[in-house]
């Protein structure tokens, strides 16, 4: 009823369906699988891997480009900021310089004015001194005469002897001066 074809049957071991009915099956299976493997190895897998590589490169390239653009934008922003801050600095510097220059000008003008006023004062003073000296000299000459005249008038006699009179006047003036100095 159950005819099992198998070479092992005679030896008493019955593998049933576990024994290949045709041993060629094993060889055919191996050969076909090798054929399939060869095609996969040489054609299919390389083609797909190439596609994935390309896709990866594409995505990677896009990412890189985006990164690059971002970096550029950042650099531009930094540059702009730097320029701005340097401009600000410069403006501050200029303002500071102007302030300094103004102050300096003011100081110079003040100094000049002071000098000028000093000079004017000094020259005024010198002129005054000269005029006073001149006046004094003139006065001294006249005062002598006047006093002599006055004294002659008072004493009632003409003081003919000029030399004695001059001596008296000088003595008088010296006394006056001494009195003026001690006072």
């Amino acid at each position, binding site marked *: 009823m159950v005819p099992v074809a198998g070479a092992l049957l005679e030896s008493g071991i019955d593998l049933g369906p576990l024994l290949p009915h045709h041993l060629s*099956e094993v060889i055919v299976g191996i050969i076909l699988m090798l054929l399939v493997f060869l095609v996969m190895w040489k054609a299919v897998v390389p083609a797909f891997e190439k596609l994935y590589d390309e896709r990866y490169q594409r995505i990677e390239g896009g990412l890189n480009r985006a990164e690059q653009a971002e970096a550029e934008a950042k650099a531009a922003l930094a540059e702009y900021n730097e320029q701005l801050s340097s401009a600000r600095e410069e403006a501050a510097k200029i303002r500071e310089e102007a302030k300094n220059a103004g102050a300096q000008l003011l100081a110079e003008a003040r100094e000049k004015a002071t000098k000028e006023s000093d000079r004017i004062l000094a020259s005024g003073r010198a002129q005054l001194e000269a005029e006073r000296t001149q006046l004094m000299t003139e006065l001294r000459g006249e005062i002598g005469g006047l006093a002599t005249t006055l004294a002659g008038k008072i004493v009632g006699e003409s003081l003919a002897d000029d030399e004695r009179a001059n001596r008296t006047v000088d003595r008088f003036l010296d006394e006056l001066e001494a009195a003026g100095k001690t006072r």
Partner: protein
Amino acid sequence: MIPWALPTEGGGGYTPPSVNDFIFDVPVIPGTPVWMNKPFWQAVIGALLVVGLWWLASRRLKLKPSKGQFFAEYIYEFVRNGIARDILHQDYKKFLPYLLGLFSFLLINNWFGEFFVFMLPTFSNVGFAYGLAFLSWCVYVGAGFHKFGIGFLKKALIPEGVPWYLLWLIIPLEFLATFVTRPVTLALRLFANMFAGHLVVLVFVVGGSFLLTYAGNPVFNVSGAVSVLFSFAILFLELFIGALQAYIFTVLTAQYVSTSVAEAH
């Protein structure tokens, strides 16, 4: 040629589906050798389909995928990322062609069990399963020897941290586990699932049609109709199991390769 054909008038009785339904001793094309039978041609057509479909899919790949390419990429990435890369990590590209071919070849041949014209999972004939298991064995053993040279034997046979006095026990066990049971279980798991699944379908279809056409017994006929209808549900289940077994075979192969090439910790 149709294995679940009803018994002829002369036989009269019911022949339950059996192991004999998986034996094909007639060449498909008369005059060719007897081993060029139905499973043989299925395997050949399956391989050609795998090669042809992938070849078509890999032509003119575009950065922006069309619908067809999207589908092909989905399957490709399922094997590439879901199996190869997950298990083998940085080494995965070397083994990807084998794993992809293996998965596709298994999937198509398993689904032949539900395809019109074929209606037989190729791997319900154990020889093909042995062949693929042998290839997977070669791949993971070869990968180990390629990477570690003869040191692979030591690495495979002596797990770390085993005391020396247990080595006499461990080494034969590890040898059996790594070099013998792995390929055998790979082959048998695949074969048995396909074989049993197909047998279940046969039982429902053959038994159901027998009951359906049984003269003079309406109860038989109704239950026969139900069982034939139910066989469609089983076919859907078989579609799922076919995909699952293709996946398991591929994952386990990748797993074995991964243990072979893994650096010692």
